[in-house]
């Protein structure tokens, strides 16, 4: 068994697939380089992410399993789980060795695992399309904070760009400390650096203060949420199943003290 260390990026993982064929190696542990504890003797191979090699693997997958299949594979990557990445490696090898029709071989553990991980991440992607709540700022920017279970911002950027094409918006992933920002033309990644040690907090610029009508619409929304509920049918268990508690802090309708 050989160990490949990769940089936890999608191109890095695809490069690992490429290198395994180049080196004619088959039984491989693919693990993130970060946090790797070398054993003795250390036989791990470090994979250097290579856009060209990654592209060749990506194109090869596309030829064999089509765009929809490839998107499912890509989606599974955002589960941020090293186990999923190992399965993705196994899946790619399985497809290249046996052909694209094997993408439907749900009896195979890698194929089934990709479907399962893609479903999990897909669920979180869908939740984020639902649970993003914009606040409108004085300068017209619609901003939202989320803390998704998986790293799904790259998967929802297109949806928000198409839908909110005429307003500037930003969605910030608090857990992963980065966001996506749309400036009426493109969506780009933005990072907010933590304040240097010892720096005092600066006052927010006027542009970041909420729009004068914003709190009105937030409270109208809260009122609507309350009024559209049918008390006689109360079913809190189902409510929590659909809106798990961990999402509540960024949902104005679930603001504590409001209901």
């Amino acid at each position, binding site marked *: 068994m050989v160990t490949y260390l990769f940089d936890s990026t999608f191109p890095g993982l695809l490069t690992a697939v490429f290198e395994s064929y180049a080196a004619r190696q088959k039984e491989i542990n693919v693990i993130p380089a970060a946090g790797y504890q070398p054993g003795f003797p250390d036989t791990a191979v470090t994979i250097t992410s290579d856009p060209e090699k990654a592209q060749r693997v990506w194109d090869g997958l596309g030829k064999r399993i089509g765009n929809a299949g490839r998107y499912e594979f890509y989606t599974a990557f955002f589960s941020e789980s090293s186990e999923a990445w190992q399965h993705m490696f196994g899946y790619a090898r399985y497809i290249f060795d046996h052909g694209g029709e094997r993408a*439907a071989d*749900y009896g195979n553990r890698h194929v089934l695992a990709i479907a399962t991980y893609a479903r999990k991440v897909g669920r979180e992607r869908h939740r984020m399309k639902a*649970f993003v709540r914009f606040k409108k700022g004085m300068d017209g920017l619609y901003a939202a904070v989320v803390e998704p279970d998986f790293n799904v911002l790259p998967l929802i950027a297109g949806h928000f760009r*198409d839908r909110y094409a005429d307003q500037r918006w930003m969605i910030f992933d608090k857990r992963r400390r980065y966001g996506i920002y749309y400036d009426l033309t493109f969506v780009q990644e933005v990072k907010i650096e933590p304040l240097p040690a010892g720096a005092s907090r600066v006052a927010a610029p006027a542009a970041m203060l909420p729009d004068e009508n914003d709190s009105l619409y937030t409270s109208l929304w809260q009122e609507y*949420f309350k009024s*559209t*509920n049918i008390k*006689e049918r109360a079913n809190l268990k189902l409510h929590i199943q659909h809106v798990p508690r961990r999402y509540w802090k960024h949902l104005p309708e679930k603001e504590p003290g409001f209901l």
Partner: protein
Amino acid sequence: MSDRLKEKLQILADAAKYDVSCASSGSDRKNTGKGIGDTGSGICHSYTEDGRCVSLLKILLTNHCIYDCAFCVSRSSNDIKRAAFTVDEVVALTMNFYRRNYIEGLFLSSGIFKNADYTMERMLRIVKKLRLEENYNGYIHLKTIPGASPEMVTEAGLYADRMSINLEMPTESGLKMLAPEKSHEEVKRELSVIRNKSVELADERKVIKSAPAFVPAGQSTQIVVGATPESDMEVMYTADHFYKTYSLKRVYYSGYIPISHDTRMPAMGSAPPVVRENRLYQTDWLMRFYAFEISELLNNDHPNLDPEIDPKLSWALRNPGFFPVDVNSAPYRSILRVPGIGVYSAKKIIAARRFGRLYAWQLKKMGIAFNRARHFIRYADSPIQLNEKDPAIIRQTILEQSTCKFRTDQSGQLTLF
């Protein structure tokens, strides 16, 4: 100003909540020309504490109504607060909620004030303003007002994604009893206006690609159950008829929530029939996605659904001759009929078995409810079964193993012999 708006929203959202339709899917409106909004597979943005999804801003334009339907909270004889939105208020609420990603769109219904066309005309003004002035491409579900003129209804269809008109009671006689001013005939007439125009434009589209989109998410209706004494069979045969005749996208079943002291209906405070409602939806799903004929599920021998077990299991236990189904060779339609196997896993089974016979561990991993399905299937390593299993024993085994989500609150639903 904002306090009055808040009060209106309370009144008119509260009055609209008994319409259970919440779908925001089935339309494919693109955001053209950098406007705002699009539609796709539908998103539930939140869920109320009763567990129902909040996808649309569901409001009445007004709860003033000239009709006095006994089952309706806005009936003219009911002593409640009345309110009405202006056109601009509805537009502002919709746009501001939509821009904050609270909703997928607008569901607009209304009590009937003055007359049907007057009401419909106001609603039409709202949807036109949204589409033409705000450049809004989000979802719009518009109620057809009973008695509105075909011209008005047809024009509304050019701007709405879905339109609906409610049958209210499962049978004409039930409706006549509680709402003498309404009739199923009128509902049929309005449904045909949209259906005929849709067919006409679909034909046109074959020739001219740019023929306008017309009610792209189709039509739906709602049946209130439990207010009048119809059987499940009567409810579902009506639903089946409307699905087939008017190509409806959805029929909603709304368990009646007592809102009146009228002695012809269940008393105030009695629990809504949630179990029955659930079984009706399951039957509806079996008709639409599992290729069941309604007469297989409900007929003169079985006019009502079994509250204890779901209709698919119930059918399976009545038809032991159909089983066991061999997952490694049976056609898709047969696999779909196995209790514990849904559309998603049935498709996986069909796809996967081309590469080798399927064993129990693989079926389990695919996500089928194995404990339920195992009584009805054969797979590569299924244990040898000498004699046929007795359906009564299977039923007992499954009931013992499963924890029914309704078990604690069945009291209100079941009148126990």
